[in-house]
């Protein structure tokens, strides 16, 4: 297992009920796990516990069998892809170069080798021609791909992504999903949160649903996703459309 989470508990204050209650997760090499759940169930909180910006009360997080104690150690193994916001005026290349930080010697600047890795990462997501363009001068989809490239430049074992397709048009959603599928095929392990269950179906991901601070269902998307389960999870009637016996789309009833 590349990522193992055992018995993770998080609460915002000691007197409050836990936001995350005894979470167990496993992620194998080359596997994609899609974390589903209604707004406010703690998907982002779980991600923030994993990347170390929130401290869990209990539980262990192991990557490649080891726990990480410093931000630098963790950043070499796990990369975080946030939702793209657009106010940075840095070039895409400079943005991706930031991902080299955990591999740099203290006080060093990225060198030629780091530039090469950054360019490779940009070309791997297909936007190397935009390397010198400013981050706030490219489209939302290109920004998301740039942040994926930045995570790639960290050379991690695990990708964590917070709603990577949020606020993207259908074409850009597809490009991002295709990139995720290709990365997983090359051996990257990916955990992402989403509000669109069919994305998990599209890229053959495993699904875990989070409700009331616990993992409710877990398994391959095509087995776990059913009208009954989704209706229960989101508290509204949802139909799952199947084609040749496999589920392909989730449609809510108004």
């Amino acid at each position, binding site marked *: 297992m590349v990522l193992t989470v055992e018995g993770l508990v998080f609460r915002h204050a000691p007197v409050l009920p836990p936001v995350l209650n005894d979470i167990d997760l496993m992620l194998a090499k080359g596997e994609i796990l899609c974390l589903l759940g209604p707004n406010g169930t703690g998907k982002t909180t779980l991600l923030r516990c994993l990347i170390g910006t929130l401290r869990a009360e209990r539980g262990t997080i192991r990557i490649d069998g080891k726990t990480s104690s*410093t931000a630098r150690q*963790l950043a070499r193994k796990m990369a975080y892809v946030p939702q793209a916001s657009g106010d940075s005026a840095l070039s895409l290349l400079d943005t991706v170069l930031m991902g080299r930080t955990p591999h*740099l010697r203290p006080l*060093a600047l990225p060198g*030629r*080798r780091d*530039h*090469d*890795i950054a360019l490779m990462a940009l070309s791997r997501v297909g936007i190397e021609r935009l390397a010198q363009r*400013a981050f706030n001068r490219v489209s939302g989809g290109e920004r998301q791909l740039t942040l994926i490239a930045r995570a790639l430049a960290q050379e991690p074992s695990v990708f964590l992504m917070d709603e990577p397709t949020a606020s993207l048009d259908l074409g850009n959603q597809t490009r991002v999903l295709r990139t995720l599928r290709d990365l997983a095929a090359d051996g990257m392990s990916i955990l992402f949160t989403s509000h669109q269950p069919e994305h998990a179906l599209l890229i053959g991901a495993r699904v875990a649903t989070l409700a009331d601070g616990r993992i409710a269902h877990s398994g391959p998307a095509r087995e776990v996703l059913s009208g009954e389960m989704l209706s229960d999870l989101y508290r509204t009637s949802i139909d799952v459309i199947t084609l040749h016996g496999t589920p392909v789309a989730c449609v809510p009833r108004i």
Partner: protein
Amino acid sequence: MTANRINTAERRQAHAELTPPTYRRHRPGSMMAMVLGVGGIAIFSMRLGHYPLSSAAILDVLWSSLIGQDSALGSAVDNVVLAVRLPRVLAAILVGAGLSSAGAAFQTLFRNPLASPAILGVSAGAGFGAALAMLLSAGGVMLQGAAFAGGIVAVSSAVFIASRLGRGSVLLLVLSGLVVSALFQALTSALKFIADPLNVLPAIVFWLLGGLGQVSLSDLIYASPFALGGIAVLFLLRWPTQVLEAGDDEAKTMGISVRPLRLVLIAAATLTTAAAISIAGTVGWVGLLVPHLARLLVGQTYSVVLPASALLGAGYLLIVDDICRSAFATELPLGIATAVLGAPMFVVVLMRARRQWS
């Protein structure tokens, strides 16, 4: 493990195909031009004054003193160059470079283009320290030390208050700086109110307007270790500082220990600024304006903007100080000149830079 690594052969290929137009780690050319520019302006500045001197004479005196001899031009000339003009020019370079580096660091640290070195209260604190020293009839090194200490005390209070209010918030830090500045300005006003209006009050007012007219070599000797040390720390930490631009949480996921880094940067920028103010008085606008000028020239990358700001700031303050001492019959206070020139220049820079922000 290896599947996720970008292997060497792929890297070489990427290198061959993509490197020539995009690999530009430093811009040694433009930096070298700026260093030469500052040197040229410094020599020119030393020519200005009641006692006219040629560039050759100045270089002759400087060279002779470097190799430990008296120049052929006589001790009067040596004295004018070494005891009067050289300290002033060095002070302008130190203050301009220090304020501009601190400004560039704070603008990146606070992710706010309107941040200035004074944002955490260092100027207000230094002003209070200086006013208190003058009220107690202390001068020279005591006055300089009081200004320096006042600046450090003010920023430390702001950082302490912010840490009590909530850990790790940049916004709380800025608000605490605002509160501390207002308090120290009020205290300075109180000192002015009780100061003897015939001699102490004018001295306080004059100090607060800023100026390099009184700078001696010993002032520089006390202030420069702090100013240069602070600039050096900011320079050495330019890469992790640049990563902070991504936001605190994202920087942490890229391996930056955000809070310790922020404290070190604040300490370095504050030492630099306090040292600059202790020699020059409260000189505004330089630290706000110069980093924006630097971005117009060298682009948005902080690791390049920082050294460019230091060099441009040195050149800028040399020129403004030249104007202060040559434009009118009496010397114009430096703080007035930097504000009068800085405000319209800032508007021009804003018009040029607007595209990059909105």
